């Protein structure tokens, strides 16, 4: 799956070992491979979406060591050894939808779905730190992610609904893979 380099061009390749959604993964890539492309092209985890590729839209947001970051603004080689959670890792251990994903379904938090992976990862991390947000706080929490379909109201509702689901299930942390 790795992208062929331009013929005649020699670029040093680096071994990158990461744990993605609890699974150890390795690939050998040039230094300029963006973390977003590393996940999608080299590890075939296409849940992470690439929108603007300059850090504005938030679609590529993944969790590195528990913190949400823009994967299009990082090189994979910088994160050798990191623990990464992508939208594929925001499910329950049995493969059913996780609390944030369920909330998006319940509240119609998506239409085309392109931006959704970035929202799910961002909100998952946010609710770990802020388990009972107000509507205003929920709106602030998603202010770094762009959605061109929903008008955001249903996504704000989804944040609040996800908080409810998590609190009904205990703190909900057990559903995020290590």
């Amino acid at each position, binding site marked *: 799956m790795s992208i062929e380099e331009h013929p005649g*061009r020699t*670029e*040093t390749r*680096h071994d990158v070992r990461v744990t993605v959604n609890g699974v150890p993964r390795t690939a050998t890539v*040039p*230094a*300029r491979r*963006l973390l977003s*492309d590393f996940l999608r092209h080299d590890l075939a985890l296409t849940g992470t979406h690439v929108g603007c*590729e*300059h*850090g504005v839209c*938030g679609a590529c*947001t993944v969790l590195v060591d528990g*913190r*949400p*970051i*823009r994967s*299009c*603004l*990082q*090189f994979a*080689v*910088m994160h050798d050894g990191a623990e990464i959670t992508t939208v594929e890792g925001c499910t329950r251990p049995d493969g059913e939808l996780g609390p944030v994903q369920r909330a998006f379904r319940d509240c119609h938090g998506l239409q085309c779905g392109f931006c959704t992976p970035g929202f799910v990862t*961002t909100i998952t991390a*946010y609710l770990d730190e802020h388990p009972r947000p107000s509507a205003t706080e929920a709106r*602030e*929490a998603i*202010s*770094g992610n762009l959605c061109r379909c929903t008008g955001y109201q249903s996504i704000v509702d989804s944040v609040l609904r996800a908080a409810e689901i998590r609190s009904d299930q205990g703190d909900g942390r057990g559903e995020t893979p290590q």
Partner: protein
Amino acid sequence: MKPSAFAYHRPGTVDEAVATLAGVGDDGKVLAGGQSLVPMLNMRLAAPAHLVDVNRVDGLDEVRVVDDGAGASVRVGAAARHTDVEHDAEVAAVLPLLRQALEHVAHPTIRNRGTTVGSLVHADPAAELNAVLALLGGSVTLRSTTGSRVVNASELVTGPMQTCLRPDELATEAAFPVPQGHTGTAWTEVSRRAGDYAVCGVGVLVTVDDELRVRSARAAYVSMGPVPEVLDLTEPVAGIAAGGARPDEWAAAGRLATARLEPDDDIHATAAYRGHLAGVLTARAARAAAERAVARAGDTTGAST
């Protein structure tokens, strides 16, 4: 939207990092958080042949409050994230302005990777931290293979996105001095959307005397010129009751700001609108800072009795 090829270096110590920078010369760039650099690389506005990743350099990720006899300061290492500074309880207690300003730096997701020192040496005219450093009279430590120097905020930034750093120098630490006396601070800004660059942003530092009257007031601005603008606002507000002044008393400070600043037009706002914002925001921030100065003076008095 993919960066061009570069050689990747990952030094483990400051000595290794500066030796690498010295070796690669003009064609190298330091990579820390990457939140400004990587977009420029992706869009190929920049294409350095070498990137020196300082994220794993020993000791550079520290955030400390230091009191070395010359007064306390908050020291932020080159690999410390905005988030680490923002959420440090000790920093928030001694220098609340850092958190007040950092809350306006892009979004939490960006602050999780972006570094405070990286922002300072990127020197964007809209960068809150450069204005904070200028307002407090802070400094940045620059290291190279030939030694180390400390440059003040006013010397650091020489123009929009331009600094006095040489290509072989690494900014290792920023020092934000804790102001003396009964002080209060506030940061306020207007941007077109939450997290966008400010159209106008202002940080204010107000000092009050034991009678809780304004002794001095100073402000620093972003997006109001090519470099952070620092204004002394003391004259129109000196001696007023910091806790109970009327809005029109603070408006005098705003009028001074509007008169002194010389912002430019751009696609986001006219110069006249920026000047208007500076007036309104200065008055608002000065009032909030003064009220906090009164509250902190009360805390200090209470603690000492």
